[in-house]
């Protein structure tokens, strides 16, 4: 994880923490959108009392990991919101998708080294790994994820406020 922010009384309190897991690589242009959203969520949690009454703490994590390595980030939480970049090819860059995790298809890839998140979660659950029971996904349609460089393309950068709001709404959905 590149950064962890804990909000609330801590994991030892009543109710386990809700995880906001933000994926991406900020050296690959728009692939860094998840990390940019994480910064916004942490700032929001620091200034807004909207989540104050919660009995569950919120943990924001940023990571560039992929595949089964994500199990380490996800274990031990009751619920999670996963934030990531996505390229469907049919939506404009900057489009914010919000969907229940079950909407993602789990595919059998050629190598578990390259397993996607749906496969990781499915196999992890079947393996007895304590993973969140409720997962929501917020994904932002990206444009450039091939160029090595920092900074988001304009359309994707403009999506940050909407994506932040989508994450906050998703937190309500999974709590």
């Amino acid at each position: 994880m590149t950064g962890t922010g804990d909000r609330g009384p801590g994991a030892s309190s009543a109710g386990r923490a809700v995880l906001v897991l933000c994926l991406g690589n900020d050296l690959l242009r728009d692939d860094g959108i998840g990390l940019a959203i994480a910064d916004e969520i942490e700032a929001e949690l620091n200034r807004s009392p909207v989540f104050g009454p919660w009995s569950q703490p919120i943990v924001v994590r940023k990571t560039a990991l992929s595949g089964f390595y994500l199990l380490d980030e996800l274990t031990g939480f009751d619920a999670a919101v996963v934030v990531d970049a996505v390229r469907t090819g049919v939506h404009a860059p900057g489009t914010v998708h919000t969907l229940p995790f079950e909407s993602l298809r789990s595919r059998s890839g050629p190598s578990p080294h390259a397993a996607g998140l749906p496969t990781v979660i499915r196999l992890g659950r079947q393996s007895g790994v304590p993973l969140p029971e409720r997962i929501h996904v917020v994904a932002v349609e990206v444009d450039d994820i091939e160029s090595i460089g920092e900074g988001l393309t304009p359309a994707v950068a403009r999506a940050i406020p909407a994506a932040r709001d989508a994450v906050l709404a998703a937190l309500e959905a999974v709590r």
Partner: protein
Amino acid sequence: MTQRITIDPITRLEGHGKIEIFLDDRGEVASAYIQIPELRGFERFCLGRPAEEMPRITERICGVCPSAHHIASARTLDSLYHVDPPPAAHKVRELFYNLFMFEDHTLHFYFLGGPDFIVGPGAPAAERNVVGVIGKVGLEIGGKVIEARKIARAFMAEMAGKVVHPVFGLPGGVSKPLKAEMVDRLKAAAPGLVDFAQFSLKAFADIVLKNQVYVDTILADHYAHRTHYMGTVDANGRVTFYRGRLRVIDPSGTRVVEFDPSDYLTYIGEHVEPWSYIKFPFLKRPGWKGFVDGPQSGVFRVAPLARLNVADGMATPRAQEHYEQMVQTLGGKPVHSTLATHWARLIEALQATEAVQVLANDPEILDPNVRRLPDRAPTEGIGAVEAPRGTLIHHYATDPNGLLTMVNLIVATVHNAAPIQMSIEKAAKGVIHGGQVDDGLLNQVEMAFRAYDPCFGCATHTLPGEMPLTAVVRRSDGSVVTTLSRGGA
């Protein structure tokens, strides 16, 4: 707002991850190629940046083994700034690195490579995964794997600031000494890590080695290549991961050369093929002779099996016992059976845990002198570590102000690029006959490259995150016989 979308793997990997198999007129495999995704332009991105940022930049190119890049980069900065860290700094880095090797190798065995063996190469695709492993090893193993790795990773985070993206490696040492209280906890935890590594080897012995079909699979000729091998050895010629000299042996096991990593350009060249972005490293002596094995070919292999092949033995006693058993079982050194890499990986995981125990109990690990400040201008530096997947070399040059003017990284998957290519073709020739291809046969071809654990981590982040692989089987005239896709739509 909730909407349902269909996400097809239209990612940066489109057009990559492709195996092409060409058949002759009799339906036998004439040749096969694999295209491996490569992150291009990273070196150029680094130019003009301060060299001391490299441990924190290079670790971000990889979603799988950032710790290896961080430590390789710190070692390179030592060289670049002409400064040798104090002994305690080396030991702190080495302790961190052994924790990393244990946790990475463990995840790989159970979740990534193990299913091929523990579940069985002929098992249905739906069972060749960690769930199948659990069916063989026991329901509790999934949680045990996560827990053992969690312990190791927690110590890594405590030592390095962050477990995924460590920030403690600096030119001339590390950013902070270890606390006695943490080391006491590590001393208490280390035996449990050793036990877990031994448990993994016992599971491998019970499930794989007692099944002759599996052993025959490991020893199958179509999974073997008689290549040169390269890996790092310590002053006693034993396997080491953090620092040492690079040793090369030929296919008969004879030592060809042993050199400091800073001399890598003297011994290693890079061959270019028009059909691949990847450069294929080879030994300048005997030189590039094509994608062929044998003593006259400069093709060499890295990774766990290569490390065990080049070394005189393991550096720790329990790992040494298993090393001797492996060599005896597989007919002596060097072991050319690619699939034995999985066994070698478990033996290395055990050595890593034993090394953690030794280092945690070394009084010098608590020495507060963990940094020697550079006092000379940076010029050029080369550093290397043994990453989980093989030798990792970083090479930087700077101007007098420490701004980068040249960056070259050779990662393990690139070192192994030519052997992976050869293994794919040989496996395809071994299992595909009469033009008949199905899912099970494709899996057996894929097993050849899974053993190397080629690293695509730097290229797979966007949802759903899976790397589509397409196997295209063509007739001699180029027309398509069949196309099989994994991870595709």
